[in-house]
């Protein structure tokens, strides 16, 4: 059995030698180069586009503008499609736009023989605008009279949803309640996969082919079909290895435009490669969400009534839309159940870059608010933050009525125990209270939960195809994609165990090609091992049964007497090896009587979801005069069920923690208030954490098998990012007594807050 073993990644050798081919590596060097003319206005109507000078640039093949594109709008979100019009993604994009809604919006595109010509021509295109006022803040955008981005959406509200439980207004009248209130702000941040968004397109065999760095090839096929108004079967998407995605590539980015551009130049090969600057501005970002929480609690902390309002900054177009904010809001009543509760969330258009999916989909924002607030309650009431959480958090046996998710084990207490022990939390938490001096230490923590996959909000389905080769090895295909997380390796481990073939004989086909690969929606929602796991198990079990049936002709043994073990047909009754799969497979394929190609394909619909749990702890040293937080020690503890590959699981968590550290301490896309221009859309000015910004990252697991899961697994890809920022924030609170209410907790913020708290001694 290989499940549970830390086997090396199936793609490690190629990646360690540099021979792994990513999108641009595959693109023929003769490709035409596309460059986009981006608006230098954040909100405007395009009056005219003058391409005369640009056309004179040698090497220019074609220039297309917002007046040339198809009229029909299309959606881009990486969601499974819905046949119910009310549940379909908002179609608000055009390939190029006449109504510019953010600084950098796409107005025209140049196709040229080479990069320099394309860039020169793009610079030479002159656009005339009717400039409109802009709005960058979600709450400002909701005010009457604010600039309107989309006519269909009054007050720029894309969607509003709410939750009501019990009677909040009545409940808070109880005498003696303590009110705790806070506003929590999270910034716009970007995924920063090291491979920028890139694709290339050409026409072949009556189809338009797009090779793209995407997490969701099958969904992108649909989006391209919708955007171009052509049959979806005439679109073929190929996804090679990709250099990270983190949700940014869970959207149709420039694949539709690239496909269209190719079709405008006779199907010639056209490459559209985002620069880093474009990746920051023209792809997707994480929603900035402002949360307002009021809790009415008894003196012992018992929650009597709670209220949440949150405003999600959608930016210029709907993309994933309200799903993100709604998911965060749904965390609120579940994490700390309270009988009387009101929650409201609004997703609001503004003239910022488009927000979409990003690792943990709304939960980092929500848990930052909720878990800072938990420590605020503790501080106000003088309660121990761990003891309080143990009392107030979702109890074992809790069932969410909507998702039917259940907390089957004592996961919160178990993970907290591990974290406390590693950090020596109890001693340090007390010791760090009431410090004085310039340099102070603090310790803090946060819990979290996360869903696995998207049921019942959306369709969950996965397909798997297995093909046995003449040597008894197996090719495995799923639509769920390898994006760096190690999915292919986990899939191979699952298939090997269920089918009974050695790990080395399982070949997961990494590249998805929508003409060939069975349908699967792709990599998102931490769904890979859960949903693809079910498809793999279903397919492998049926395949095994089929093989044993076919083997009857050769072994004369009833299928129920046999099993496949380590690549051999074995008689269970006495353990005798009857024949190898290699012999069987070759004999069957080349049989002159009854030839058969051993293969199986299964589609599995999934109608469950699973809670994933854990916590994070952080210890910090705060240099008050220098306004700096140094992270001394950090641990994430996860209950993600059974780990298919512990080494890969740990690596996933470390990466998520790193992203969490950046979110906590340094990352923020800054927009100029007047123009709406992103000021720091490059890797120097956008402060992604470097090798020197981390302490050792400690990772621990508690493995309670998930009862609903094919292999006992549940979400692990995204959750690691969630607890880091609130844990650090609560550590700073412990160190300094200063409660911070926004991210990132960078020196700019610390300077303001320490100044307000009069922490600077003998100030100048």
């Amino acid at each position: 059995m290989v499940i549970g073993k830390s086997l090396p990644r199936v793609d490690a050798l190629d990646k360690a030698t540099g021979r792994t081919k990513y999108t641009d590596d595959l693109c023929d060097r003769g490709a035409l180069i596309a460059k986009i003319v981006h608006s230098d206005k954040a909100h405007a109507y395009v009056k005219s586009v003058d391409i005369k000078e640009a056309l004179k640039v040698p090497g220019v093949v074609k220039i297309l503008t917002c007046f040339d594109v198809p009229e029909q709008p299309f959606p881009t979100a990486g969601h499974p499609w819905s046949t119910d019009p009310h549940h379909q993604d908002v179609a608000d994009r055009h390939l190029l736009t006449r109504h510019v809604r953010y600084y950098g919006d796409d107005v025209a595109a140049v196709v040229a023989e080479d990069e320099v010509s394309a860039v020169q021509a793009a610079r030479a295109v002159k656009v005339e605008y009717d400039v409109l006022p802009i709005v960058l803040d979600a709450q400002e955008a909701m005010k009457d009279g604010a600039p309107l981005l989309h006519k269909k959406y009054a007050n720029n509200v894309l969607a509003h949803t709410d939750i009501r439980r019990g009677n909040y207004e009545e409940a808070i009248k109880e005498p003696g309640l303590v009110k705790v209130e806070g506003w929590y702000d999270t910034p716009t941040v970007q995924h920063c996969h090291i491979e920028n968004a890139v694709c290339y397109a050409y026409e072949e065999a009556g189809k338009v082919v797009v090779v793209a760095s995407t997490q969701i090839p099958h969904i992108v096929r649909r989006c391209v079909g919708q955007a171009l108004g052509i049959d979806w079967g005439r679109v073929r998407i190929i996804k090679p290895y990709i250099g990270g995605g983190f949700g940014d590539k869970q959207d149709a980015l420039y694949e539709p435009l690239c496909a269209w551009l190719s079709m405008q130049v006779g199907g010639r090969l056209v490459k559209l490669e985002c620069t880093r600057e474009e990746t920051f501005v023209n792809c997707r970002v994480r929603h900035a969400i402002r949360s307002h929480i009021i809790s009415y609690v008894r003196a012992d902390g018992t929650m009597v009534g709670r209220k949440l309002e949150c405003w999600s900054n959608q930016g210029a177009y709907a993309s994933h839309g309200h799903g993100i904010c709604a998911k965060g809001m749904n965390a609120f009543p579940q994490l700390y159940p309270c009988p009387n509760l009101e929650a409201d969330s609004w997703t609001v258009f503004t003239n910022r870059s488009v927000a979409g999916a990003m690792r943990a989909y709304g939960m980092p924002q929500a848990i930052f608010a909720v878990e800072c607030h938990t420590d605020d309650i503790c501080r106000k009431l003088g309660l121990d933050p761990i003891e309080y959480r143990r009392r107030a958090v979702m109890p074992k046996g809790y069932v969410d009525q909507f998702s039917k998710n259940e907390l089957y084990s004592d996961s919160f207490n178990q993970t907290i125990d591990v974290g406390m022990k590693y950090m020596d939390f109890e001693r340090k938490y007390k010791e760090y209270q009431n410090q004085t001096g310039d340099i102070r230490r603090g310790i803090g923590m946060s819990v979290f939960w996360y869903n696995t996959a998207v049921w019942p909000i959306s369709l969950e389905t996965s397909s798997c195809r297995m093909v046995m080769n003449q040597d008894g090895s197996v090719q495995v295909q799923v639509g769920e994609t390898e994006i760096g997380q190690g999915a292919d390796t986990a899939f191979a481990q699952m298939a090997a165990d269920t089918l009974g073939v050695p790990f080395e004989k399982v070949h997961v086909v990494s590249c998805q090609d929508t003409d060939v690969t069975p349908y699967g929606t792709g990599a998102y929602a931490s769904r890979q091992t859960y949903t693809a796991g079910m498809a793999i198990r279903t397919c492998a079990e049926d395949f095994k049964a089929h093989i044993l049936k076919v083997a009857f002709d050769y072994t004369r043994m009833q299928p129920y007497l046999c099993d496949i073990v380590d690549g051999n047909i074995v008689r269970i009754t006495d353990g005798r090896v009857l024949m190898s799969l290699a012999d069987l497979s070759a004999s069957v394929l080349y049989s002159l009587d009854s030839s058969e190609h051993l293969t199986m394909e299964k589609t599995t619909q999934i109608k469950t979801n699973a809670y994933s749990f854990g916590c994070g702890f952080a210890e910090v040293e705060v240099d008050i005069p220098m306004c700096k937080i140094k992270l001394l020690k950090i641990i994430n503890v996860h209950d993600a069920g059974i780990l298919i590959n512990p080494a890969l699981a740990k690596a996933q968590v470390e990466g998520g923690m790193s992203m969490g550290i950046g979110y906590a301490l340094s990352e923020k896309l800054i927009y100029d208030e007047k123009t709406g221009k992103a000021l720091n859309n490059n890797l120097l000015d956008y402060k992604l954490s470097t090798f020197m910004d981390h302490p050792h990252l400690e990772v621990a697991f508690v493995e309670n098998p998930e009862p609903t899961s094919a292999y006992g697994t549940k979400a692990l890809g995204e959750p690691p990012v969630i607890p880091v920022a609130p844990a650090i924030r609560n550590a700073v609170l412990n160190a300094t007594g200063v409660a911070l209410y926004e991210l990132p907790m960078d020196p700019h913020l610390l300077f303001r807050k320490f100044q307000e708290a009069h922490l600077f001694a003998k100030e100048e």
Partner: protein
Amino acid sequence: MYDIKALYEAKSVEDAVRLLTDHPDAQIIAGGSDVLVQIRSGKRAGKELVSIYGLDEMRGVKMEEDGTIRIGSLTSFSHITQDPLIQKHINVLGEAVDMVGGPQIRAIGTIGGNTCNGVTSADSASTLFALDAIIEITGPNGVRTEPISSFYLSAGKVDLAHNEVQTAILIPKKSYSGYKGHYIKYGMRNAMEIATTGCSVNVRLSGDKKTIKDVRIAYGVAGPIPMRAHTAEKAAAGQPVCAETVDRFAAAVLEDVKPRDSWRAAKDFRLHLCTTMAKRALIEAIKKCGGEVL
């Protein structure tokens, strides 16, 4: 592929001067870590370039007979940090340029390029100010020298004619002998960073380590160009090594520094940092001299 109109590779300093004279619109390029980035951004797109990168005669650190340390302008940051002469006599400069960007940037970035681009955030510049460095410039009429304080004219502008090449940076013996220095780079992260503010202090103590004989403090990003804080220097010179002196010194820098508001940092924050860094850099420099602030 860069949008470059033409590239001329100089064979010698004289050749570089001649090429620049012959091509009045050409841009000089040393390591390229600034110029190429600007070309890509469109700022210097379509220009002719005169590359001096191949001029090994402009590389390396030497001590001249009078004890002056001569740093060839094309010496990369990493080579400065690793140089034994630098480590022995002006280690603070090696430490300062070891905070530029990351290792690969330090391998390509040159001290000449860092000073010629005239930006206030250059990590080498404040330390060179605190060392009273001399800039050697070669032009059609031969070699001239300028103190670094007059080499910088205004933001992004230095005293270098179109057909002149900065060939070396000179640190006179009297500037470093007996001094120890400390540089603090303030950034938002610990690597791949542009300085929010940089502060470099050079100090010389009395034989008994009780008195500050002389101190020089310079800043990057405390004004449009790197600058000294002479008021603070005067306030500390001749004063006893003690906490009060350090505090007075730190407070006095506010007389000289003139940071501005920008999205990279607010003015009041930068002012706060200027005093905090002055204090810490002086204390560290005193420690390196063998003194102790009580």
